[in-house]
Each structure stands twice: as structure tokens, then as C-alpha cells.
């Protein structure tokens, strides 16, 4: 659920008489099938998963890199961004810290504008960062901590809300602060001098170095800020500046000559120019990349290859050599509404954990290349993850065990309502769940709705579902990002993501304890304990850790995906000489 909706529901009040607005999803499938026929492919290839990241090598400087995006526009406003540190905004805006992503390695938080990843006071409630020497904006002016403070403050204003907001409840006074446009400052951020910035937190927060890598921790010079337009062309601190940014067409980034490679530990700034091709049709982009023609030769797609087109890629040796599949990433899961009658019984939820058929679910999503079977809440690639399986069974499930647990519980289950998005893949996955549960005489009805309605229903205060299919990739590579948003009782309803409506005081306490533990190794132990404690209550069924596959052109190199996140590192990709 963390990404922009890709499906487009038909507008209810569109009065145009154009006949082409209908019957779209069926068409996509038909067209893809046709694509297979046209290229002479076997529609049922054996999928194997031997594509892997390039290893990082020398970066050649020069050329124009194209990035194909379905989104019709890019808003570079750091306050409004929910982007990962390694994607679009990471090319233009530096933060206090950032992510070092290497193929086959766990993600690491590294200093970006700062000299280290932050020094915590003994109680973990005060964090101090110092800026490197010689940092400049694209206009040659020095980057100061006052600008980082201002950048954070403006993210609190209603006008610029919408971005990653983890810092808002963590900083002292953050919950009531309304932003700088009302003339007030946030006193819990102090800047004793131009190089030093101090944060005062409500309670100890061990993952603060990760929080400091989020977009809102980018410097924004106050005198250049026009809240209405800043996202069009922000003042660049990274290797690229925005040359032009035309909604519905393209955004062009060119070199920022004031950026100094020696001060930047992660960005390699290979291409002279980066062009975001906006509003691209996903099927057309995939075809362009498969045939490696035109701009696609020097580019890659910002969206992963849809399951339906993976088959075609696997059969094309040339395209396959340019396919990069991530490691197992986001957790796809079946959430059970723990407040629903019957599902409030832990035995029933455990029974459903045994009853579900993860194999048919995975096939509905594209088969083996879609991901690995899941059993834990903390996802692979996140430091401190412990592998375990409380409900051991074949991927097909254990029907006998499920039946006996149901009998033990004595619950009489009514027909359960299963909420899903209405795209073809989600509905197929829901049907796999439906069939699996029918094996243990649990009846379900599938309620498939458009993406907007799905998000609203799933995160509403009064849920109208018993079961819901969800997917979650943490916003930062800490177990905190896996567990707190999905299982803390404060995250129920209100647009938040505790879809199973799970409430356990002991777990809340464990989450608080882990969050407040500053030593990473110690914190990781507590998170692992929380992981298991939650799964004993079985609020959800972990289904698979999904993998994303991306295509790049033949002239692109250093195109890497780490263990986390399941997305390519934009600022390391470069072009061959």
C-alpha cells in the first residue's frame, strides 16, 4: 500500500462521450497475451530466478540516463515526499544521513550532509549532528543547519503535509506545531551554530539515524521558499539540479557543479543528465525496454515489470540479461480483523494460518519469481531478523491441523468478507485464499473495490471487512518499520495501517521498549521478541516476501538492488562509455 495507486477507476462524473474509456482491464490482459503471440513466446515458460544485481564497478561519467515513470509529475518538495532515500529526490536533495545500499548486503545508514549518523545523549532523547565542511547549494551559498531546521519546520504545515512524517510525533512539541508560516519556530530543534543541529525527542528513539535520512531532513533555504512552487524546482544540494520540470511530459536534471563528490559517500553521479519520462504507459515502457530501442537503451523503468510480462522477458535471452530481480522484500499478508466475531478467538486465527495455501496464492501472483514464502513479520534484509515459523506446514497448508484447531475453538464462523483491490492479480490472489479456506469449511465473500476505496475501507475507523489482503514495505530498514505501523494499537484506523486491528498491551510495551533502545544490537533482540510474540497471537497470515523485477537498457550499468529496499538505487546507476 505504500506506492501510488496504479489502477485508474472510471470517473463517475465524466461526461465525455468518448467510447474508449471502458473495458480496460480485460484489454490489458488481452493485449499482453497478444504481445506473447506476436513475439512467438511460449505462454507458460518455466520461470527461474537467476537474474541478479550488477556488481558495483567503476562509474563512467557522461551521457543522458532516462527513467520511465507512470506518474505524470514529480514533486521535489521534501516536505511532501514519501520517497525512498535512494530514488528520485535522492538525486537532488541531500539529507543529514542517507542509505548505503550494496548488492547482497544489508542496508546501512551513513552520514550524508552530517559527519556522522548522530550522537545520542545517554538517555537517547537528545541527538546532535554536525555538518561537513564545504557544503554548498547549486547557487554557491553555504548549507547551514538553520536551513535543515527550517526544512523540517515547514513539513509540519498543513499546506505541505503528505510526506513521511515519522519525525512529527517524535520531536518535543511536534504534535501541536503548525509550521513556520504562522510565525512560530519548533523549539525542540536547536541550531547553536551554522554547523550544529540538536534534536530533543519525547522519548529515546534508537532509529533516529534512519529518521534523519527522510526527505524532510533536507535543507531548504528560507529566502528561496515559495511553498506553492518549491517542489517544481528546489534549491539543489545533491549532484543534480532541476533544469526543467513539466508535468505530464518530462523532468530534466543536469549536473550541479557546486556539489563536491568528496563530501558525498554514496552518490556516484555518473550521467551528465537524468531525464524522467513522465506519464508513461507501463506496458509500452516494458516493451520498449524488452526491445532495447531508442531512449530505453540508456534507461530503466521506475515501476517493476508486471507479472504478466515477466514470462515474455524470461523467454527473451537479451531482455533476460537486463532483468534485475530484488531479493525477497515487502511482506504480502492476509490480515484478519481481530475485532470480528469468531476472528477474535486466537485458535481460529491460528487455524487460518494453517488453512491458507501459500502456493496457490503465489501462483496467482506470478509464481516463484513473485517471492519467497513468508513466516515472520520482520522481512529478509532487515538487520536483526530471526527466521522462525510458528505454524509449520507445507506451502499448501495443513488442513487437518486447521480443522482440529477450529473444532477446539468451538466457534461458529459466519461468511467472512474478504476485502481486496479490484485489479486482476489481487482478485486472483483473493480467490486462492477463498478456495483454501473452503477446504476447512470457512466461507468467504470477496469484496473487490478500486484502489481509493480499498485504502479508505482498510484504514477506516469502522472496518467493514473480516479479512483483507495487504502488502507492506517498511519506510526505513529497521524492524521498527516492519512492526510498529502494522501492530501497534495506536495505528488502528484513522488512515493508519494496523489492518488486523490488533491490540495487545504487552506488544505495545515491547514496541515502546525496542523503539527506545538506542543500541542497535540490543534493540534488534527486542524486535525479534516482539515479532514472535505477535505471531503467537496470529493476527495475520504472512504469505510471501514479494520480489520486484526491473528492466534496464543495455547501456546502463551499476544498476543495483540491495537486500532492502526492493527498488534500484537511482544515484548509483550510470551509462557505459
Amino acid at each position, binding site marked *: 500500500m505504500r506506492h*501510488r*495507486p496504479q*489502477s*485508474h*477507476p*472510471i*470517473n*463517475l*462524473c*465524466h*461526461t*465525455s*462521450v*468518448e*467510447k*474508449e474509456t471502458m473495458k*480496460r482491464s480485460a*484489454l*490489458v490482459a488481452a*493485449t499482453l497475451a*497478444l*504481445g506473447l503471440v*506476436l513475439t512467438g513466446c511460449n505462454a507458460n515458460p518455466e520461470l527461474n530466478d537467476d537474474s541478479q544485481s550488477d556488481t558495483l564497478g567503476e562509474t563512467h561519467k557522461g551521457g543522458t540516463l532516462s527513467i520511465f515513470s507512470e506518474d505524470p*509529475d514529480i514533486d521535489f518538495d521534501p516536505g511532501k515526499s*514519501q520517497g525512498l532515500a535512494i530514488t528520485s529526490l535522492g538525486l537532488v536533495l541531500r539529507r543529514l544521513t542517507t542509505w548505503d545500499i550494496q548488492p547482497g548486503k544489508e542496508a546501512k545508514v551513513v552520514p550524508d550532509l552530517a559527519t556522522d549518523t548522530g550522537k545520542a545523549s545517554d538517555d537517547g532523547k537528545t541527538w546532535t549532528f554536525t555538518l561537513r565542511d564545504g557544503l554548498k547549494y547549486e547557487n554557491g551559498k553555504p548549507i547551514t543547519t538553520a536551513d535543515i531546521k527550517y526544512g523540517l519546520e515547514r513539513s509540519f*504545515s*498543513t*499546506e*505541505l*503535509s*503528505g510526506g513521511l*512524517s515519522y519525525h512529527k*510525533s517524535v520531536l518535543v512539541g511536534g504534535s501541536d506545531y*503548525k509550521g513556520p508560516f504562522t510565525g512560530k519556530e519548533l523549539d525542540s530543534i536547536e541550531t547553536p551554530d551554522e554547523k550544529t543541529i540538536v534534536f530533543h525527542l519525547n522519548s529515546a528513539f534508537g532509529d533516529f539515524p534512519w529518521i534523519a535520512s527522510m526527505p524532510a531532513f533536507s535543507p531548504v533555504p528560507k529566502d528561496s521558499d515559495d*511553498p*506553492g512552487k518549491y*517542489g*517544481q524546482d528546489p534549491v539543489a544540494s545533491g549532484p543534480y539540479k532541476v533544469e526543467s520540470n*513539466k*508535468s*505530464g*511530459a518530462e523532468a530534466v536534471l543536469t549536473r550541479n557543479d557546486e556539489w563536491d563528490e568528496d563530501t558525498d559517500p554514496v552518490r556516484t553521479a555518473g550521467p551528465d543528465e537524468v531525464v524522467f*519520462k*513522465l*506519464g*508513461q*504507459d507501463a506496458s*509500452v515502457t516494458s*516493451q*520498449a525496454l524488452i526491445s532495447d*530501442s531508442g531512449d530505453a537503451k540508456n534507461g530503466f523503468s521506475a515501476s517493476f515489470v508486471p507479472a504478466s510480462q515477466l514470462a515474455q522477458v524470461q523467454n527473451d535471452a537479451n531482455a533476460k540479461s537486463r532483468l534485475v530481480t530484488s531479493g525477497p522484500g515487502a511482506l504480502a499478508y492476509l490480515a484478519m480483523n481481530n475485532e470480528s466475531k469468531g476472528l477474535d478467538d486466537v485458535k481460529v486465527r491460528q487455524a487460518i494460518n494453517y488453512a491458507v495455501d501459500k502456493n496457490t496464492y503465489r501462483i496467482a501472483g506470478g509464481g516463484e519469481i513473485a517471492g519467497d514464502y513468508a513466516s515472520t513479520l520482520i522481512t529478509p534484509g532487515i538487520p536483526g531478523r530471526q527466521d522462525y515459523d510458528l505454524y509449520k506446514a507445507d506451502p499448501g497448508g495443513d488442513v487437518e491441523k486447521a480443522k482440529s484447531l477450529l473444532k477446539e475453538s468451538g466457534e461458529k464462523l459466519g461468511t467472512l468478507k474478504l476485502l481486496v483491490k479490484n485489479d486482476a492479480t489481487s482478485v486472483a490472489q483473493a480467490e486462492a485464499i477463498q478456495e483454501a479456506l473452503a477446504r476447512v469449511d470457512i466461507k468467504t465473500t470477496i469484496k473487490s473495490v478500486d*484502489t*481509493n*476505496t480499498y*485504502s*479508505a475501507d482498510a484504514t477506516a475507523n469502522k472496518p467493514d471487512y473480516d479479512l483483507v489482503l495487504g502488502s507492506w514495505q517498511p519506510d526505513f530498514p529497521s524492524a521498527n518499520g516492519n512492526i510498529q*505501523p502494522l501492530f501497534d494499537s495506536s495505528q488502528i484506523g*484513522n*488512515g*493508519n495501517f494496523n489492518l488486523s486491528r490488533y491490540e495487545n498491551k504487552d506488544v505495545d510495551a515491547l514496541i515502546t521498549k525496542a523503539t527506545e533502545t538506542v543500541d542497535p544490537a540490543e534493540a534488534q533482540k527486542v524486535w525479534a521478541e516482539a515479532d514472535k510474540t505477535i505471531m503467537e497471537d496470529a493476527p495475520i497470515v504472512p504469505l510471501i516476501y514479494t520480489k520486484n523485477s526491473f528492466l534496464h537498457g543495455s547501456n546502463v550499468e551499476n544498476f543495483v538492488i540491495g537486500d532492502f529496499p526492493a527498488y534500484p538505487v537511482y544515484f548509483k546507476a550510470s551509462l557505459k562509455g
Partner: protein
Amino acid sequence: MNRAKFIASRTIGAILVLLIIAAACFAIFYLMPSNPAQYSCGKPCSSDRLAEVERYLGVDQAWWKQLFDFLGGIVTGRTFGSGAAAIHCDAPCFGYSFRLRESVTDLIVSRLPITLSLTLGAAVLWAVGGIAAGLITSLRRGTFTDSAVMGAAITGISAPTYLLGLLGVLLFGFTLNVLPIGGYIPLTENPAMWAFHLILPWVVLAIANGAIYARLTRGQMLEVLGQDYIRTARAKGLSETVVIGKHGLRNLVVPLTTLFAIDVGGLLGGAVITEKVFALGGVGTLLLEAVSSLDIQVIVGVTLFAAAIVIIANLLADLSYSLLDPRIRASR
């Protein structure tokens, strides 16, 4: 009824229709479970912040209140938020997109050249091609040409634009590699490249829309050619060109004009699928994105724009009847 009176009464009718459409849009989105504020609340989002964002976007108000605010904005302009970050949308304000940080009027104005280029070019193609195909088949009724062209027309009517578009891209963009697969070059920047990039979308849209013109022309012509006065004209010894051109074709002008006006009007409101396939960021794409991100003001603004264009196109068609057909003139 004189012409001024006619236009006046139609204008009043049009305004009423637009009001009803605007009211329906606000009512529908108000009744839907989705909350547009959730998109701009941030992640994670606290209930206090959500309430603030709802207030800022104005979606906490009842739908009729939102409608009145919208209508008021057309007359007096609107201001959103307060203090240094306040946003002004000058009168006449047809809505403001918080997502794109631009007024709906500016958004439509900047996207319209693309939709205009796409629609008008395609319209010329499908009108000429469709009518020509209809004429030829009606004159060669029952021949192989007739069946072949009409068969193609049926395919054109029933083939979905998305499929036609993707097939066009696969064949001409990738397999033959002779045409660009998408994108838009402004006419003012490079007329040749403008046309080059639009050939494929034009043809696709023309096939999808032109087929109905072929069928209509053929059907009407067959009916007309069976009339007594055509026989008389032929008997008088008039050349076939005059019989068809002067006595036959004129009968088709009114129905074809009506259809053409509605089609062009409709597409100017956004050729959604064609724009999407060919990455043309026109009015259709604007609407599509607004719907998927619940950008209500853009949805209402673009919908009203599209409706207004259709109404105007119909009005022009009606006005043109008396010029095109002497019988209508005589009956007034």
C-alpha cells in the same frame, strides 16, 4: 424564433446542465467512502492532522457547501490556508489542485494544446477517411470492396482503442521501428516533429472513431440513392458526379455534422486512453490522474470543461443546420 433568442435560451439551459453536473460531482465524492485528505496527510498520519488537512482542503464541509464555495470562487476567487503559505486562486477560479499546485484553469490551458492537436488531426483523418469509405461502398454495394471495407469498419468500431494503440506501438514503434512510440513536441517548437509524433495516435483515434462515419454515410447514401428524385436527376441526364455530389451527399451533411460535433467535443474533453498509451499529457491524462488521487477540484473543473465543450459543439451544430439545409431555413 430568431437566432439571438435561440442562443440565449440554449445558454441558460447549458448553465443549468453544468450546475447539475457540478452538484452531482460534489455529491458523489462526498458520499464515497474515500477521504481525499488521507492522500495529503502524510505517513504516519495522526487524527488531529487528518482533521486539519480536511479543513484545509475543504472536504470536511457538506457537499452543497463545497458546491457553493466552488461557485463563489468563480465570481470572487478563493484563498486557501492562511499566513505566508496561503494560496490565492484569482477569479474566475474554477478550482485549485493542491497536488499539482496550480489552478485548474492554468492546468487545462497548459494541457489543451496537446488534446487539441490530437483530436483535430484525428478528426480530419476520420471524417475524410470515414466518409470516403462510406461513399465508395455505397456506390459499389455488394462487391468485394463493400464487404472488405465494411468488415474493417466493424473491426474499427469494436476494437478497443487501448488494444489498437498498443498494437500500433508494437508494430510501428518496435517491430518496424519507423514511428516514435509516444511523447509530444509542441507545434511551435518543431512542426515536422509535432506531426511525426502524432501520426500513430491520430491514426489509432481515427480508426476507432472513423468507422461509424463510414457506416452512417453508406447507410444514408443507399437510402437516398433509392429515392425518386435521384432517379429523376439521373433521367434528366445529369452526370453521376452531380447526382451524387449535389443531390445525394447534401442529405448527409446534417447528420454527419451532428455526429462530428459531438465526437470532437467529447474528445476535446480528454482522449483518455489514447493519451495514456502514447504518453501524451493532455486533458484526458489530467483527469485520469485526478480521479486516481481524488483531486476533487480538478475532477469537477475538467468535467465541467468537458461538458461545456460538448454543449458548445452541439450548439454550433444546431446553428449550422440552417446554413447547411435550406429546408430548415424555410421552416423558421
